[in-house]
């Protein structure tokens, strides 16, 4: 831990430098070759779009953040519970698990309008899309963690007459934690994508003013810098959620898991 400052700089500095170099190159190239601004927005104008006067975008970020977090939270709870049920019985697993794949394969573009039909407009269908898109990795990873508990430890718990609940709570769930976090990391990014796509499709129908809505709008009125700024914010939202999960994973696993 004493090397922390070094490792922090070592993680943050190289990608930051790389980003600045790339952005500067695009800026220079766009200016020198006189690319029209509506085709290639200057990185500088994208940043300006987020400055004063860009409050609509920051507001949109808030909407999208709430919707993705809600969807992600439901994914986490529902996904872990579903995995526990599936892990509990081989027959339930065989019967039901194939259908959870629908979450993965469903064309979200097609069902988003249906969700509006069922749930009305606003944040609910958007959060639901975030959930639908992000739940499968939680189920799949948690399940694979729960069913691969070390057999000797399962024997040990049986030997001392542990209840099913004790085996789950004291052995199988903690042993599956690294897998659960893997699932959550994937789900975090997907939840944001799911929310933005839903906003894109159905957000304009209601008073939900998320980033997807702004993207549609600004595309229509040809403000590519604002479109890019919105995309940037959405990506950072996904990154922030990912980082938060890594942070929690680090503190819950560092004492015992080799990954930390």
């Amino acid at each position, binding site marked *: 831990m004493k090397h922390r400052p070094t490792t922090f700089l070592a993680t943050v500095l190289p990608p930051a430098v790389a980003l600045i170099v790339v952005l500067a190159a695009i800026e220079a190239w766009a200016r020198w070759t006189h690319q029209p601004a509506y085709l290639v927005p200057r990185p500088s104008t994208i940043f300006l779009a987020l400055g004063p006067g860009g409050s609509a975008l920051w507001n949109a970020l808030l909407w999208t953040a709430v919707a993705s977090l809600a969807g992600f939270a439901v994914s986490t709870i529902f996904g872990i519970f579903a995995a526990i049920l599936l892990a509990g019985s081989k027959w339930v697993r065989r019967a039901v698990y194939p259908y959870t794949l629908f979450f993965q394969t469903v064309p979200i573009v097609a069902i988003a309008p249906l969700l509006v039909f069922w749930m009305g407009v606003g944040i609910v269908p958007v959060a639901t899309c975030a959930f639908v898109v992000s739940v499968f990795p939680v189920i799949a990873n948690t399940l694979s963690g729960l069913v691969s508990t070390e057999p000797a430890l399962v024997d040990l718990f*049986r030997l001392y007459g542990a209840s099913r609940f004790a085996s789950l709570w004291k052995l199988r769930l903690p042993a599956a934690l690294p897998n659960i976090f893997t699932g959550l990391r994937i789900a975090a990014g997907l939840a944001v994508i799911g929310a933005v796509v839903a906003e894109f499709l159905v957000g304009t129908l209601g008073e939900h003013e998320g980033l997807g809505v702004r993207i549609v709008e600004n595309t229509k009125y040809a403000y590519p810098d604002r479109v890019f700024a919105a995309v940037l914010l959405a990506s950072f939202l996904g990154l922030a959620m990912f980082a938060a999960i890594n942070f929690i994973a680090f503190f819950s696993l560092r004492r015992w898991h080799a990954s930390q």
Partner: protein
Amino acid sequence: MSERLLKRFDRTDRARNEQHVTPKAHFSMKDHALGLTMLPMLQKPSHHRESGLGVRIEGVRRQFENGVVALDGIDLNVASGEFLAILGPSGCGKSTLLRLIAGLDKPQGGNVFTMEASHGRADRHGLGTRADIAYVFQDAHLLPWRNVLANVALPLELMGIERKVREESALRAIEQVGLGDAADRYPNQLSGGMRMRASLARALVTEPRLLLMDEPFAALDEITRQRLDDQLRALWAALNMTVIFVTHSTIEAAFLAQRAIVLSSRPARIVEDYTLNLPAERTGSIRSSPAFARETRVLYQALERNEV
């Protein structure tokens, strides 16, 4: 042993003994070999239950779902308080046998009984033997997210014993195996030998009457293994338990056990049942004695005979 735990044990003991009136034997041959003066912390309260569980195996057969017959018609009696070593080629069915004895697996044919010492009343599994049997695996298999203390206390925790009591017992077991100063360390901060000690402490914490060990020290270096063997032998002498110990090492078997059986390759049959002719008092130095060399040779030859 603290009050509550003792009561627990006493209650189960009474239940176990209610059908007979034989007074508890307070003397066994092992007492000569105690070396208790060297290990004062091992002394037990005088009212502790008397003896290890015996095991009777009759014509046991175990065939796996894939058709492999691991055991076919094994008969074996293990006396209460005995230290039995099991030797045999890899994959012959030793672990299978141990799991059957522990009640972790069921045979397709035959019977496995555990027995009280004084009257030979056989007890089928699942009746009152839970806390009486402990199992040590080839790897330590500690829970990596728990420190040594919480790992060692786990069996008592699963049996529903309250925290203060189980932690006291766990600390005592940790002392017994010489891990006293590592109680709050996590498994990944321990050496392989220390992990194995913790695993042994976890097995001892319930004061088992039958300790099953499946090649427990096989992954350790020679010195560490010998040190643990020495300690195990002393613990066995002090703790009134039956030990069944699977090993690939004839030296380890000869040093630890009173009796060794050698199994043939699959399906396992007992091809040699040998009572070791060595003094009950076994310290490290016995390993270099001529008698010891002779006894290991007997075991080695038995192994070799059926290896081909």
